[in-house]
C-alpha cells in the first residue's frame, strides 16, 4: 500500500475554489436528499443510487480535472455529474424520466451524461466504464492533446475481470486515464472483507506497474491532491494511476433497497451512526473552512439555502417538463 503523500502546496486551492468545493458538496447532498423524498412518493421510475457521504470523493476529484478532461462515471453518479458542473434541472428531469432530461427521459439515473462537458455518463453495468475510459485515454493519446480521462468505479467493480484487462492495457500503452476506485466498503450488501481477497485495492497497482494511492475519502483536499497528481502524471505521458479513496455510503445501496424491509440488515446500525457523526465529509470540510477563517455559521447557512433554492428551481423545471413523446423511443439508436 502506498499512502498518498502530501506534496506541493495545498494552498494552490484559493479561498474561492475551496468555497466552491464546499458549495458543490452541499449541492450534491441537497439534490440527493431531495431525490430520496421524490422516491418515497414513488415519483422516480426504477431506482437511483445516492452518494450521500461520498461527496468529498466526487468534488475533490473533479476539482482536479481540466476543462476538457473526460469523466466516466458509475451507477452512483449524480454527484460526479453535479460536481463537474452538469446542470441540476437537466439531471433531475432525467432521473424523473422527463423529455428535457439529458437522455430524453429514457435513461434515468443510471444513464446520465453531459457530452458538452465531456461527461460520458453513468453506467448500469458495474465496471462498464473501466474499459471505455481506457479507450478514451487511447484516443487522447493518439490525438496528442493534453487532455486526460478520469474513471470512477467502485470496490465491487474492482473484482470484475474488466478491471484487470483495462488496467493492464492502459498501463501497457501508457494512456492518460486515471482510475479512481471509490471504496465505500460495500458492494450492494457485500462488505469489503467478503469482496476483496486483498482489502487494499490500491496495492493492485503493483501488478500493473503504476502508482497506487490510498486516500481518505472524507478529506476533500486529500482527494483533490491525489487526483491532481495522478492527472498530472497522465498528462506527462507517464500513463495511468490507481487512486483508491476510502469512503462510506451513509444510505442504502439504492433508494429502492432503502425502502425494502431488511434492505439494510447487512451492516450494523452503529457503523452507519459512527460515520454519520464523525466522518461526514461535509461537516469535516465545514470545520476546516471555519478554521481557515473562510466560513462562518452564517455563510454556511447561506450556501445551504442557496443550494436548496437551486434544488427547488430544478424541481420546478423538471416537474413542469413534458413527458417524452412516444415516437422518441426510436431516437438515437442509429446515427
Amino acid at each position: 500500500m502506498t499512502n498518498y503523500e502530501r506534496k506541493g502546496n495545498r494552498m494552490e486551492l484559493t479561498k474561492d475554489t475551496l468555497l466552491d468545493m464546499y458549495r458543490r458538496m452541499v449541492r450534491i447532498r441537497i439534490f440527493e436528499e431531495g431525490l430520496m423524498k421524490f422516491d418515497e412518493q414513488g415519483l422516480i421510475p426504477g431506482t437511483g443510487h445516492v452518494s450521500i457521504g461520498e461527496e468529498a470523493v466526487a468534488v475533490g476529484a473533479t476539482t482536479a480535472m481540466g476543462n476538457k478532461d473526460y469523466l466516466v462515471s458509475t451507477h452512483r453518479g449524480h454527484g460526479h455529474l453535479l460536481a463537474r458542473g452538469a446542470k441540476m434541472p437537466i439531471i433531475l428531469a432525467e432521473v424523473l424520466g422527463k423529455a428535457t432530461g439529458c437522455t430524453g427521459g429514457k435513461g434515468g439515473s443510471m444513464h446520465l451524461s453531459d457530452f458538452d462537458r465531456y461527461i460520458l455518463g453513468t453506467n448500469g453495468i458495474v465496471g462498464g466504464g473501466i474499459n471505455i475510459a481506457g479507450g478514451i485515454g487511447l484516443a487522447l493519446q493518439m490525438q496528442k492533446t493534453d487532455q486526460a480521462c478520469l474513471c470512477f468505479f467502485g470496490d465491487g467493480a474492482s473484482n470484475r475481470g474488466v478491471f484487470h484487462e483495462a488496467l493492464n492495457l492502459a498501463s501497457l500503452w501508457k494512456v492518460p486515464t486515471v482510475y479512481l476506485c471509490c471504496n465505500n466498503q460495500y458492494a450492494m450488501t457485500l462488505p469489503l472483507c467478503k469482496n476483496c481477497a486483498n482489502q487494499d485495492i490500491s496495492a493492485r497497482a503493483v501488478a500493473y506497474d503504476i502508482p497506487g494511492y490510498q486516500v481518505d475519502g472524507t478529506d476533500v483536499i486529500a482527494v483533490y491532491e491525489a487526483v491532481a497528481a495522478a492527472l498530472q502524471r497522465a498528462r506527462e505521458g507517464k500513463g495511468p494511476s490507481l487512486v483508491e479513496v476510502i469512503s462510506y455510503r451513509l444510505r442504502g445501496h439504492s433508494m429502492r433497497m432503502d425502502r425494502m424491509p431488511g434492505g439494510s440488515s447487512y451492516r450494523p446500525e452503529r457503523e452507519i451512526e459512527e460515520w454519520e457523526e464523525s466522518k461526514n465529509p461535509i461537516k469535516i470540510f465545514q470545520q476546516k473552512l471555519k478554521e481557515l477563517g473562510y466560513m462562518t455559521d452564517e455563510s454556511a447557512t447561506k450556501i445551504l439555502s442557496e443550494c436548496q433554492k437551486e434544488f427547488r428551481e430544478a424541481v420546478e423545471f423538471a416537474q413542469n417538463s413534458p413527458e417524452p413523446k412516444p415516437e422518441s423511443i426510436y431516437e438515437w439508436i442509429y446515427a
Partner: protein
Amino acid sequence: MAERQIAFREAIAEAIKEEMTRDEKTFAMGEDMAVIGGAFGATKGLLEEFGEERVMDTPISETAIVGFALGAAIAGMRPIVEIMRCDWMTICMDEIVNQTAKMRYFTGGRPQIAVVIRTATEGGIGLGAQHSQSFEAWFTHVPGLKVVMPSTPYDAKGLLKAAIRDHNPVIFMEPQILYGASGPVPAEDYVVPLGKADVKREGKDITIVAWGGITPRVMNAAQTLADEGIDAEVIDPRTLRPLDIETIVASVKKTSKAVIAHEANKTSGFGAEVAAQIQELAFDYLDAPIQRVGAPDVLVPINRNLERIVLPGPERVIEAVKAIL
C-alpha cells in the same frame, strides 16, 4: 483484360488499408493482427503501411479490445478492431451489447460510435466446437448494431469499406472457410452499401436466401438444380441488420417458394427471422412451407466426416428445394 482476382483475405486487408489511408481517425487493433497480419492473414501489410501507432497488437483481452474501441470512438476516433474468432465474441458481449450498441442512446444521440468489430466466423476447417460457431443471430437481435456477413471477396471489400465509413457500430463477420477463396475485385475505389441484398443468381422457380460461407455451396447447388431443369434464384442479403427484406420478398412473390440456408444452428438461427418476415409480408404468395437449412442442434466436431455431416452442404440445400417443388 481479365478482371483482377484476389483472395477474400486480401480484399479485407485492401479495404482496411484504403480506408485507413482515407481517414486519419481510423486505426486497427486486435490479437496478433499487426506483426503477423492476423491469424488468417487478413490484416497483412497494415503494420508496415501505417506503423505501430495505428496498427496495434493487443494482449488477449477481448473486453478491453472492444471497450477501448468504444472509448476511442466516443472521443472521436474510428477504430477497426478484430476479435479473432466469433466464438470469443461471447467474452466481450457486455462491451458489444450493453455498451457499444447503446452508447449513442445513453449520451442523448451525441457521439458517433463508429466502431467496426471484425471477426472470423463459422466452421469448415476442423477446429471444433469453440472455433466454428456463427453467432450472427446473437447480434441481429440487438438494436444499435449493424451486422454484415459477406460471401465473396468483392462484397467483403466493398462492405468493409462501407462499414468503416458508417457512423454506427458494425459487427463484420468473415466466414473463415472463405479467406483463401478468390474472386474478381476491381482495383478502383468502390463500396457496397450496407443493407442491400444481392441477387447472386436470377431464377424463376424458387428463392434461396443464403449468407456467409454456405453461399458458394448454394451457388453450386443451384447449378446442379439447373442441370435438372430447376431454375433457382439465389439471394445473399450480405447485411443481416438492417435486412433488405424488400429484395427477398420481391423474389418470393415471383417464385412462390423459399429456402433459407445458413451454417449456424438452425434453432433460433437468423433463418427463423427471415422466414417469419417472408410469411408476414408474402404469405399469400407462398405455395409451400418455407424450408430452413442449418446445422442440427449439435456441436461442430473436428472429425472431417462428422464436420461435413453437421455443417450443411449443397446436398442439404438440394434436398430442401426438392421437398417443396
